[in-house]
């Protein structure tokens, strides 16, 4: 059922029965990587932040992140900042809920990003993933694994954009560097 997406792959956000989706959740989960060293069992806390930037005609008009948990129109909601990541579970540590029906008509793209607020690179993160869930029934529609992890502190995960009357999701998986979404703007723009 779940589509494991690869970089650049696009999927249409449609239900299995052909109906359009009404609400989706972008979930982000991670665990801090074990630190190798004298005290090998000691883990370091890593604070990853999920953000969603709302674009109209390639111009950012609103953003949902840990300091602005709900878009002004109420259609995109962040469930709250998680500072440490999952403790061994595979669940979502931060979620952004998008009520696609209520997204204002001029917003045509929503870009999801992940930043390392504490500055560690993704090399130190384990089992990081981003997934799209149909919020009405809890079914996972797509999952994108942050593979490997390199010397970068941010990733532009995916975008959800209007296609005709519905929406489609494109996995981007583009590494970048930055502490919050603002630093990523130059890297986001080429993907619009």
């Amino acid at each position, binding site marked *: 059922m779940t589509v494991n997406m690869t970089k650049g792959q696009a999927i249409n956000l449609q239900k299995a029965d052909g109906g359009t989706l009404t609400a989706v959740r972008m979930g982000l989960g991670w665990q801090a990587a074990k630190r190798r060293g004298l005290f090998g069992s000691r883990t370091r806390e890593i604070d990853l932040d999920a953000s969603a930037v709302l674009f109209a005609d390639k111009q950012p008009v*609103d953003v949902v992140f840990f300091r602005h948990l709900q878009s002004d129109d109420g259609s995109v909601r962040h469930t709250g900042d998680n500072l440490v990541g999952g403790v061994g579970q595979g669940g979502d540590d931060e979620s952004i809920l998008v009520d696609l029906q209520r997204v*204002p*008509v001029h917003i045509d793209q929503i870009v999801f990003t992940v930043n390392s607020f504490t500055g560690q690179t993704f090399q130190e993160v384990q089992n990081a993933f981003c997934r799209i869930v149909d919020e009405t029934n809890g079914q996972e529609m797509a999952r994108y694994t942050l593979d490997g992890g390199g010397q970068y502190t941010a990733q532009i995960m995916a975008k959800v954009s209007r296609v005709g009357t519905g929406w489609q999701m494109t996995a981007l998986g583009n590494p970048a560097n930055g502490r919050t979404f603002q630093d990523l703007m130059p890297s986001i723009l080429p993907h619009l």
Partner: protein
Amino acid sequence: MTAELVRGQNHPVSHSRVEIRVSAGTPVLALASLADDRGRFSGPEALTHPGAPSLPGVRSPEELAERHAFPVDLDAVPAAVHTVGVVLVLPPGGPVRFGAVPASYVAVADPEGTELAGYTLTGLDGETAVVALELYRRQGAWKVRAVGQGYAEGLGALLADGGLPAPEAAALAAAALRTASRTGESDPTLATMPTLVRDLGSPRAPDEAPAPAPEPPDPLPASGSPYAGTPGPAAGGDVSPPTLGPGTLSYVHPRRRPSSTEPPEPAPRATAPAEPGMPPRPVAGDADGWSMEERLYNQVWGMFEDLARSVAAYRSAVEFADSRMDRELDAALSDPRHRLGGSGNAARDTARARRDDLVAQARAVLDRDLVQLVAECEVVEPALPAAYARWDNPVWHGHRIPGENPLALRLGDLHLPERPDLRIPMLARVPLERGLWIDNGRTGSEAAMAMDTDRLRRAAMDMAVAYAARLLAVHPGDRFSVHVIDAAGAGAASLAPLVRAGVLAAPPAAGAAGVTQTLAALTRRVDLVQMALRAGAPEDLPPDVDTAEQLLIVHDFPHGFDDRAVTRLRYLADEGPAVGMHLLMVADRDEASAYGPLLDPLWRSLMRLSPVPDDHLADPWVRHAWTFEPDLPPQGSQVLEQALRLIAEARRTGRP
């Protein structure tokens, strides 16, 4: 962790002994039905009801109540039974349909009292009996499913649907309802008009077990509200309101249908049930909260936020469309290719059309949201308790002084220019966190500029009196007192109803001496209560200290105030709210301009309200400017006087 079920959803039940909890907005009968693997009832013994409350594994409550809790032992249920249904039935004589009462909530709890799963019954309309939940066997284990199947024709139809022959089903339903009204009311005269009398506050029948209420009784007279009855004139000609004994007013709505022991006829369906893909029809009380009052409060705030955000979406789309059109027009103008021929005009037309198209789309989305909110407002507004209700709400005519402090208070209405007739109640939590300031200055707003000073001042003071009356009426008799400082006596005309009814703690203080005396007394009270609270010994207060919540109305500030009095007033404004001392200023800021910036913190600490519609309030989410309009008793209405009489009466009987 309670699983909130939606209709049709199921959830495992990990315990064999569970408790079914019902919380309805009106007294209901809770029954349990036992069905076999094909969902059929085997006979009259398949239903627990007040006449036969026990079946193996199940014991359902015997009386009508808003809250029920009853045990189910799933191990003891006979093997042939595959489904245990929880059925709610509206009693005869009460509300005639579930659509007219706040949504009920049904939950399954484990023996420790933790709720495993809960379900709010939304979307009901003309139904009088409903299967709320069912516990069912699935591969040797029990699960619970949210059902929400209602029957407009009542319990008989529900039973017939389960396979009982129609006459048998009707007989069983009649027996269940008959015994319900018998066990619920021992007095035969009461039994003929069961809920009307009970809900209006007459003493409960002595043998009626108190409902297992973990919270105080709701002041919301759900079924006492005329909205709960069938609208339109009564079919049976004149109905003389029942007399409730000497000294008791009858609050029965004249057009209410006569109640009887027969099951009520279902009300006509106003609208068809929600189409697939359409939003569900709104229900009053469809929000979280411990009590119906809290649920309604949260629902109103939810509506407030939804309207703010929907309008924000619309405004941002329009703004974007405009700026895009400007950009495109600029581009069309500067493009040298358009200098010759008509292509420039075409480009401009395209830009305008694109703008209009986007605005139309945004408006369509906004209208969709507004329709939903208007519909929600229409069901919520009539269901509001007195503290939240407009003065013209009929709930005020049946109002009784409650036994508990209210959760919040309606200060007025809020609306936005996009839909001026959609009024969101502006509710403030009680005790008020900050004082109120009714601005009677003409420079405050455009609407005030257009009024002459005398009328504006009168309107502001009338508004203050209406707030005082509302606060008094929704607090228990001796839990709220009102003081007035009216140094020049200019507010006497507005204050007359309060003075006449004798509900003020003392006559309005006049002159500099009166101001000083009142402020000194209230300052002392705040000081003593603060000290007592800090010392953790509130019982050691001197006997002359009034521990009730206080409201101080200050009119014509700073007339009659010396520096010392001003300092005391600021002390009350700062320290008062924490110890139940509210300040309500009716003042023109310009008149106190002699104090310079010294008083700015005082004005800032108060919530500014205006006696005329004015858009100075911002919502906490997107900061729209909302137009505030005070809610005043309708012209010529006696509702304020009536409320004040009630208060005075409660004072007389409440205090020795």
